[in-house]
Every structure is written in structure tokens, then in C-alpha cells.
């Protein structure tokens, strides 16, 4: 009985590993780019939620925006290869996201400089004047 269980577990593990290896060697479709982009997004969210330094929080926001850009470009390529669309409006969206990200970084860093001049700190848990 336990031998059966062991054999079953071994078989399952082997098939899982072989499927994983097949996935590694298979042509990369849109989903692989989506998974990569999601991992970038998750790392960015982790940075925003856990770091104390406000500068590194800003950099993590850039990571999140970059993950969104990767999604736009991957889907544009996907739909173009499907033959559904001929223009690439996704790229135009990416240009606008880059512009808005630059504006956001400029304003945020301006606020940061004003804040540093008044409070002499960049640690977000010491900036608690409005905390209830």
C-alpha cells in the first residue's frame, strides 16, 4: 500500500518536473510576459509597503509603472500577431505612461525636498504628523 503511494508520488513529481522543463523550452507566448510583468509588479508593491526610505518607495513605484508598460507592449505584440489590429496604440499608451511617470517623479521629489528641509528625515515612519 505504502509502496503504491510512493510510486504514485514519484510519478506525479516526475510528470510535474517534466512539464516544468517542457514549459521552459516551449516558445514564449504572451502569458510568460504577463507572469514576468506580474512578478515585477509584486516586487514593486513589496517595496512600497515595506521600505522606510521614501526615495526607495518612489523607485518601487517606477517598477510598478514599468510592469504595466511591459503588459501594454506584450498585448500589442500579441494582438498584432493574431492579425486583429494593425496599428500599435499600446505603444502610444506606454509613451504617455512614461510621460506621466516622469511628471510624477518630478512632483514627488519636489515634495520630498521641501519635506526634508522642514523635518530633516526621509523615513516614512517618522513623518507621522497627520497620524491619528
Amino acid at each position, binding site marked *: 500500500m505504502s509502496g503504491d503511494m510512493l510510486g504514485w508520488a514519484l510519478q506525479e513529481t516526475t510528470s510535474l518536473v517534466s512539464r516544468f522543463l517542457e514549459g521552459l523550452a516551449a516558445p514564449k507566448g*504572451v502569458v510568460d510576459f504577463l507572469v514576468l510583468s506580474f512578478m515585477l509588479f509584486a516586487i514593486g508593491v513589496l517595496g512600497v509597503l*515595506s521600505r522606510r526610505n521614501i*526615495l526607495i518607495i518612489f523607485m518601487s513605484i*517606477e*517598477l510598478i509603472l514599468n510592469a504595466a508598460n511591459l503588459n501594454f507592449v*506584450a498585448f500589442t505584440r500579441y494582438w498584432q500577431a493574431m492579425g486583429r489590429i494593425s496599428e500599435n496604440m499600446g505603444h502610444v499608451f506606454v509613451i504617455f505612461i512614461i510621460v506621466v511617470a516622469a511628471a510624477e517623479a*518630478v512632483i514627488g521629489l519636489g515634495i520630498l525636498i521641501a519635506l526634508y528641509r522642514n523635518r530633516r528625515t526621509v523615513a516614512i515612519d517618522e513623518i507621522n504628523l497627520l497620524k491619528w
Partner: protein
Amino acid sequence: MEVKGAQILFYYVLAFFVLIMAVSLIRARSAVHAALYLMGTLIGTAGLFLLLHAEFVAGAQILIYVGGVVVLFIFVIMLVNVREEVTEATRLFTRQEVVAWVLVGAMTVATIIALRREANLLPSAVAPAEETALAFSEDTQQVGSALYTRAALPFEIASLLLLVAIVGSVLLARTRRQEETFD
């Protein structure tokens, strides 16, 4: 859109490079190192854009992000730099670090499982005529004409946004003495 052959190798190299750089970014002790890791992430993403035949976007990414935003970050680090983070005694993370790890981990596992499961439902795109049709410079031309025709109004609004951002940042970052002198 299938990325095949030697491009698979590029996909893996760039993907691991980008992820390692991103993890190093959120774990970096010094803000200058974090800025350099951000630069690595952005360059790696530009490589992925090239892999997806988005040449203009890759160029814009390098020019604006790496040449503009990262340099801006480094300037601000120079202005506000706190040396205390470099010493071992300072905490790098807030107290909600564990909660953040758990939430992000759960979200990651759920989403990746869901994406992998739905992957078979997405029709795989194989259009051989289309694959070779895009010449190297055609992408830039298409993006340019789209910016001036279909996206003309957002284009103008973006220029207005940049103007507001410039004026606003100058207004925010000036000192008390400058305010008194020029008001």
C-alpha cells in the same frame, strides 16, 4: 506572438536580470545603489521591449527613464542624502514588513496559478505573414503617426502636464529665502 529559438535565451537572460535587479532594489541599503539597480531594471525592460518589436518604446525608455528620471533621483539623493541608512543599526523596513510579505506572496501565488490555468484558453497567435511584415523602422513611423492623429489631444494634454510639473516642482523646491526675494 511566439518568441522562439535563440530569442528564448534572450527572454530568460533579460527576465532573470530584471527580477534580480528589482529584488536588489528593494533590499538595497544605500539609496545610490538602489538608483543604479533601478537603472538596471529599466535597461532590462528596454531589452524586453526590443524582443517584442517595440523599438521606439525601448529607445524612449532608455532616453527618458535612464537618462532623465534616474538622473533626477540621483540629484535628489545628493540633496537630501542621509548617511545613517548605510550603518547597520538603522532599520530598512517598516514594522508592517511581515504583513506585506504575506499579502504579496499570497497575491503572487494566486495570480500566477490563475494566469497559467487560463493560458490554454488564450488562442495562440501564429500569423506567419504578419511576423515578417514589420520592418525595423516601421514601428517608429506607426507610433509617430498615431501620436499626431488618433492621440493628438492626449499629446497636447501631456505637454500641458509637463509644463505644470515643471512649474510645480520649481515652486515646491525653492527655499524660504528665495520665496522672500522673489515674491
